[in-house]
């Protein structure tokens, strides 16, 4: 049986999909902040970003600045699976956020030039991870 096709999450999910504590996968853990940007480097203010690995799961709707945040712990795998939904994305995008200095064979398959899009940067006590949907510095997405 063919899988049911995707459709965009649309702009109006903000009253439905967020839940209490949705961005906190692990309390008292590492804070990750980032921004979703489009092909004009404008913020994507109606995206939904999910991160998951093992027992950790978190969800965050972007704000008008395209900003999202999570609280997570570093898993043994060294990365979180990241899923991006947005108005204008007819189907979701899959990527990974590697913790600084983490790497594996998947990272090595990606050309050196694009590899940094998969790795979070240290920013004081926090990590920074931006998602560029299109154009200069486009994030590596997986299929």
């Amino acid at each position, binding site marked *: 049986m063919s899988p*049911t096709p*995707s459709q965009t999450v649309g702009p*109006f999910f903000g009253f439905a999909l967020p839940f209490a504590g949705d961005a906190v996968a692990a309390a008292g853990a590492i804070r990750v902040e980032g921004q979703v940007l489009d*092909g*004009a480097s404008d913020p994507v203010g109606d995206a939904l970003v999910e991160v998951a690995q093992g027992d950790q799961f978190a969800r965050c709707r972007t704000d008008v600045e395209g900003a999202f945040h999570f609280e997570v712990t570093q898993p043994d795998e060294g990365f979180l699976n990241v899923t991006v939904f947005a108005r204008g994305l007819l189907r979701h995008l899959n990527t990974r956020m590697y913790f600084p200095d983490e790497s594996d064979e998947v990272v090595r398959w990606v050309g050196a030039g694009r590899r940094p899009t998969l790795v979070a940067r240290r920013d004081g006590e926090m990590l920074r991870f931006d998602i560029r949907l299109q154009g200069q510095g486009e994030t590596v997405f*997986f299929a």
Partner: protein
Amino acid sequence: MSLEQFEPPYLFPDYRATKLRAPQLPPVKLPDEWFDRARGPAFGRIPVRAEDADLTSGHAGEPLGERIIISGRVTDSDGHAVANTLVEVWQANAAGRYLDPVDDHPAPLDPNFTGAGRCLTDSQGRYRFVTIKPGAYPWRNHANAWRPAHVHFSLFGPSLASRLVTQMYFPGDPLIPHDPILNSISDPRGRQMLLSRFDIETTVPEWALGYRWDIVLRGGNATPVER
């Protein structure tokens, strides 16, 4: 075994918002089956109460509109039931207005309708929501653009491959041929999969019309192929 996959493209210029949001570079292909093997998100923190499956409940009165039941079965690509998985739905009210503050369509809000629901599939993969039929609404994508009535669905399933966000439409809706979002799926068989059907068996006498919509999540032993 290979399966045809009817996913829409990322870039579909008739849906204007795709132009600056569709990635330009091809995705990096992970080994076959990787997404099927990777465990799906642990969605257990998302609260699900029994009453969340009835979108007409939880308010002082009954919402306006045509009361309906939407039910169906969630399976994987092999036809096996996907049990105990989270189904989230959201929709406009009968007047075509979302409760979401971003929605500025000048149609009335309904104080008795939020338009968001959740449930877990049962051991047979079945789900069932009670709601009202959503209205059509304008969306400024092009001149005189109206979305056909639809209900948004989000499902998890067992793996990363099975995650699905989509929209369910109603049979016979005259706006369907004009909708670039549904028509971004080029193959009519794919579009057909997003149409519910009126179902007399689901219909409850003297109470609510029933619509049946089955959902197939990617995964199982059959491997989807890009068309």
